[in-house]
């Protein structure tokens, strides 16, 4: 490249214009880079803050207890039937086994503090063991049970002992016991399986996202089964068959409008039609799926129409030229070529639906539901609503669980968007 400044061949007016043009180009590039940088910074900020808050939720502290299964407590009448076994006082057994580790704690208030270290889930764990193997009654069993969320948070270092005792939920006495148990190997930290295997709970250490994940899965299933075929069929008709007239223009404008309608409006529509009129069950993922189908239908139609439009007309002409009927040319040639675009649009629509919460609140999916749903008709919640519910909870331990649930949701979203990219790359064809 020659230096224009020293070249006598370039008149100064031209040189000035060139210089200004280059400066404008540099400025333009800088604006672009700055925009991208800012967006990336926000993203990093978001991820870092969520991960910082949430990583600790993926582990939990469990306490190992040796429990003597006293037949006199579990089944004093010796009936051994499931009813008497399931209603036995397991809490007493668990507490006694913990008290046995600290024989000097005898005072009532102190004992209550000591038992406060245990999760209320401990007795359920013990009951599960006994129900599974009633033959073990009379022997001793070793169970691992989660600690109470406050104790767990202290051991994770999330509660500072420097805070005055009156301002923290974990007391000095409990800290001493915890340290003793920890030093003695009675407590250890492990991967928090509860988070992925349990439904919702009022106790943070017993709460999991499985119910929400299953609910979200059914919701997505309903949504895709309904909206994909309807959306593609509508797009094919509008793009390939419909005459161009005022009526189809009106439909097109309305589809574009629907894509921009706030989703909560669709929730109200679902409430009025699916719940009130058709009387479908409240909080069911089926109803949620119906509402979300309505929400992402315009997205799918618009994406599918764009994909169909992008198929070169020469392919249609080629098919028609060898005597294919219109339907054959669409089914054999146009649609297969449009599939990557349609799939991408659908997956992005689904990702949108997965993160949707407002319309689901309106149709009652915001209820506190402990059981993991079995069918799409069971009451359930979904991931974004679960996040909303946990974020609203008072217990501090729900803060980390909220962040963990957000991470799980983000992973699903990233996976879906990555899938969209992969499908596009894989099926992209040259013509």
């Amino acid at each position, binding site marked *: 490249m020659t230096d224009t400044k020293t070249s006598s061949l370039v008149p100064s007016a031209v040189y000035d214009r060139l210089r200004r043009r280059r400066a404008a180009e540099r400025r333009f590039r800088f604006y672009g880079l700055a925009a991208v940088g800012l967006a990336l910074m926000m993203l990093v900020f978001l991820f870092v803050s969520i991960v910082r808050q949430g990583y600790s939720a993926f582990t939990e502290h469990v306490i190992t207890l040796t429990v003597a299964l006293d037949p006199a407590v579990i089944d004093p009448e010796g009936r051994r039937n499931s009813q008497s076994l399931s209603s036995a006082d397991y809490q007493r057994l668990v507490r006694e086994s913990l008290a046995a580790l600290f024989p000097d704690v005898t005072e009532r208030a102190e004992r209550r503090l000591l038992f406060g270290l245990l999760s209320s889930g401990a007795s359920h764990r013990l009951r599960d063991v006994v129900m599974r193997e009633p033959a073990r009654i009379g022997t001793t069993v070793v169970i691992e049970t989660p600690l109470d969320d406050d104790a767990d948070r202290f051991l994770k270092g999330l509660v500072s002992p420097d805070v005055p005792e009156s301002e923290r939920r974990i007391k000095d006495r409990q800290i001493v016991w915890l340290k003793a148990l920890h030093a003695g190997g009675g407590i250890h930290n492990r991967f928090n399986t509860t988070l992925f295997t349990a439904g919702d709970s009022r106790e943070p250490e017993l709460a999991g996202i499985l119910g929400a994940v299953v609910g979200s899965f059914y919701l997505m299933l309903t949504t895709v089964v309904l909206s994909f075929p309807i959306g593609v069929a509508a797009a094919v008709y509008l793009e390939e068959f419909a*005459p*161009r007239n005022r009526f189809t223009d009106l439909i097109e404008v309305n589809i574009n409008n629907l894509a921009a309608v706030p989703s909560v409006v669709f929730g109200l529509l679902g409430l009025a039609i699916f719940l009130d009129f058709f009387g479908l069950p409240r909080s069911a993922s089926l109803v949620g799926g119906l509402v979300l189908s309505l929400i992402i239908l315009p997205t799918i139609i618009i994406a599918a129409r764009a994909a169909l439009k992008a198929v*070169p007309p*020469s*392919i*249609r*002409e*080629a*098919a*028609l*030229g*060898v*005597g*294919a*009927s219109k339907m*054959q040319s669409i089914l*054999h*040639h146009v649609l297969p*070529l449009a599939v990557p675009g349609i799939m991408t649009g659908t997956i992005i629509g689904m990702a949108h639906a997965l993160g949707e919460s407002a319309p689901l609140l309106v149709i009652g999916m915001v209820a506190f539901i402990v059981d993991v749903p079995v069918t799409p008709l069971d009451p359930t919640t979904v991931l974004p609503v679960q996040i909303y519910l946990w974020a609203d909870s008072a217990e501090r331990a729900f803060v980390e669980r909220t962040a963990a649930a957000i991470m799980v949701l983000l992973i699903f979203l990233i996976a879906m968007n990555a899938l969209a990219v992969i499908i596009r790359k894989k099926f992209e*064809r*040259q*013509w």
Partner: protein
Amino acid sequence: MTYRASNDPPHGTVGAPRVEAARAKLTACNVDVFYGEKHAIKDVSLDIGRNEVTALIGPSGCGKSTFMRCLNRMNDIIDICRVTGTITLDGEDIYDPKIDVVHLRARVGMVFQKPNPFPKSIFENVAYGPRIHGLASGKAGLEEIVLTSLKRAGLLEEVKDRLHAPGTSLSGGQQQRLCIARAIAVSPQVILMDEPCSALDPIATARIEELIDELQHNFTIVIVTHSMQQAARVSQRTAFFHLGELIECGMTEQIFTNPLHRLTQGYLTGRFG
């Protein structure tokens, strides 16, 4: 659709737009084409002779492609396009509502300006037509049709080892011959070629022209071309279009050596176009 007596002398057209009735494969009478308000083809009457090559020439936008696309009703897919007049194939009106356009296009095949193979294998490209029309009996029959068509299109030697490679992996000239093979695989009676060589280099063009020479023994061919040399080389009859009108039609030799109309003369000598 308006019908006129088919023997009306086409006013405006000089030369010989008609051939003897026995030799006419396609007959167009007083054809007008409108794109919305635009009058694209004005009262064109022209015969296409059996088993010969008819070249349609003229400056860009003169309507020669539009006219050709009327011959297999490809204009039907354009919403705003309207065709009046009559076009008959072996005496049968192809715009008759009773005519199945799919069947018509199987009889009047088409090769496009830009090679447009399906994004499928070479084999599938050729096999598609016979398959949808049920021309082949069984797998072996289909294979035979594909191989024969490729052979007649002069492509078989080059691709016989990679029949399952994508059609789009071929060179431009090969792609165009693949499109010709695809067109002849459904055994049409007429092949329409819309500037088949405009996207090809001279060597590939020469191959296509050789191919046209061979194909004319079995097919009636109509070719639209911008190259007057090409028209002179491959065609027996030539029709010159200008601004939607058929100006002159006659034997190629006569048109190129002794044009009757001054517009034809001007175009051929490069004064406009």
